[in-house]
């Protein structure tokens, strides 16, 4: 198989397959949760469940001071790699062009130098996150195979993207093909792992905030 054939395969049938698994998987996972439903609360409310739920969706993004002090490393690296990953994903010109081609919507991109710097920061942070997961007693204790798998499929698109941009090692065609392949791996793994939190955390925060809000507590 030539490099071009490989790129065509990766950009063609493999991308289609990955997209189907990604989207269908997410829908199935969300439905699996929602069909379970929950019982109506018969106690007289003190506050609003809806307001509490919406509040917690937003407010839970920031830890309160003492928790932040106790868990600064996890909190700070968490913030950095999430922002780094999402910004490089959504504000790099070629990514926006792709989205525009598929979905017909676009928005201004960030300068390439910013994206470049951010990728490096994200790569370093993700490495730090991995070392922390292995080195920290609690995290090592909690971690399973899935946690390392998820780390790998998150790390690879950033790394291969960076390498493709700087044309390191292989031909540009191969580099971009490998980059796309790594994204496909992420998409396929996504619905079956904790990566689902990207969607379900909004539900979880809502439920948490609603349970508390009903009792008049801001959670």
């Amino acid at each position, binding site marked *: 198989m030539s490099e071009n054939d490989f790129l065509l395969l990766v950009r063609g049938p493999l991308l289609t397959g990955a997209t189907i698994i990604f989207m269908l998987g997410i829908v199935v*996972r969300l439905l699996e949760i929602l069909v379970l439903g929950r019982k109506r609360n*018969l106690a007289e409310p003190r506050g609003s469940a809806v307001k509490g739920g919406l509040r917690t969706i937003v407010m839970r993004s920031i830890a309160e001071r003492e928790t932040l002090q106790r868990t600064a490393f996890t909190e700070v690296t968490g913030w950095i790699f999430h922002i780094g990953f999402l910004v490089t994903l959504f504000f790099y010109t070629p990514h926006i062009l792709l989205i525009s081609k598929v979905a017909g919507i676009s928005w201004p991109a960030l300068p390439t130098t910013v994206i470049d710097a951010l990728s490096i920061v994200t790569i370093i942070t993700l490495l730090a996150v991995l070392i922390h997961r292995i080195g920290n007693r609690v995290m090592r204790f909690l971690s399973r195979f899935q946690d390392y798998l998820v780390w790998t499929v998150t790390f690879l698109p950033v790394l291969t993207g960076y390498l493709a941009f700087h044309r390191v090692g292989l031909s540009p065609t191969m580099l971009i093909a490998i980059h796309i392949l790594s994204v496909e791996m992420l998409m396929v793994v996504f619905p079956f792992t904790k990566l689902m*939190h990207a969607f379900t955390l909004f539900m979880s925060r809502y439920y*948490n905030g609603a349970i508390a809000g009903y009792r008049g507590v801001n959670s």
Partner: protein
Amino acid sequence: MSGASLERGIHAFKEAIDAPVASFFSSCVRCGLCAHACLFFTETEDPKYTPIHKLEPLRRVWQQEYTFWGRLASALGLSKPVTDEDLADWETLVYDSCTMCGRCSMICPVGNDIAYMIRKMREGMAVAGHAPPGLIGATQRAVTIGSPMGVKLPALQAQIRQVEEETGMTIPVDVEGADYMLLLSSMEIMNFPEFIGALAKIFDQADVSWTISSNAFEATNSGIQIGVSEIAAELVQRIVDAVEKLKVKYVISPECGHAYMAIRWEGPNLIGKPYSFKVVHVLELLDELREQGRLKLSSKESQRLTYHDPCQIARRGGVVQQPRNLLNMVADDFAEMPETGTMNWCCGAGGGVSSNERADELRLTVFKRKKAQLDAVRPDAIVSACSNCRIHLEDGLEKYAMEIPVLSLTETIAEHLAEKDKSGE
């Protein structure tokens, strides 16, 4: 519990899994932050006390039963079913090292309400025969005698007579048509009967019409602590029946965190219908009286006071501002501990831990967290609103050689109450 089996336990797990639980398990990224919100971890640094880990058997049942991938893996024989040994291994994690204080639920970045899930997990643990003997005993006494501590009506009557002699007041029992019906925890009846006298004095001054029911005076609900909903519902129903018999409008939940959760928030859901009456926490009522100018003090407390928020009253119950209003009224020097209100640290003995002798050493070990909070403000006295917290605070203070008295907020107010103005009568 009779007829306990692994099968019943797993069935109860399956029943307990709802959309919030499924969403919580789907969202966990195993970041480990919940460990740092839990005093059982912070004071022992043992990773097994990480809150989300305490739910592992429940999580496995969710994964194997309610996810496509998990079901497929089970069908292919690739997953490891939860065994009786697993539940035995998790018993101490779920009952001894979790007070369901819900502090982890406040800090989980993806929003998992872990305490909500522990409460549900106990449903399965209990019917699988993996609840602590201490709690089983308390629950059996609650069902057969009416009180987890085995306090029978004659014991209450004796305490009431004693209070009446000491205060010269009449404690109303079974008064039909009163506005408020007071519930008490067994611990209050046996260890802090002064609470009854204090409340009588306050209600007398504020002209509150109230009564105690001889049929349903126990406020706590062991069925909830152990996790058996049928028993919990039966205990709630006793109160509902007494309310209907006496035709009262309100039920007062006393200075007991767990009782408030049981009667105010879980009660209607356990019996499957809304109440025809309202439940107020005694601090809510006292704060209402304060607002209406019906609490008149003759003096103020000059000692430096701090307030320990009982988890089920504040974080899980929503009564946060009221005790502060009351303390600012009654005390000159009210100092807050660091991390207070809805972020307060549990005393370490709630959620049935104090009824579980096996956990005695652990609950005293984790009291170091409360000690650190107290060291930061160095109060002359600690005020709280839960007799279970109060007993454990006293235990902990003794263990760490700290000489700080623990007071009830209601009693503190009663002590400074002005004599009733009889001129209007």
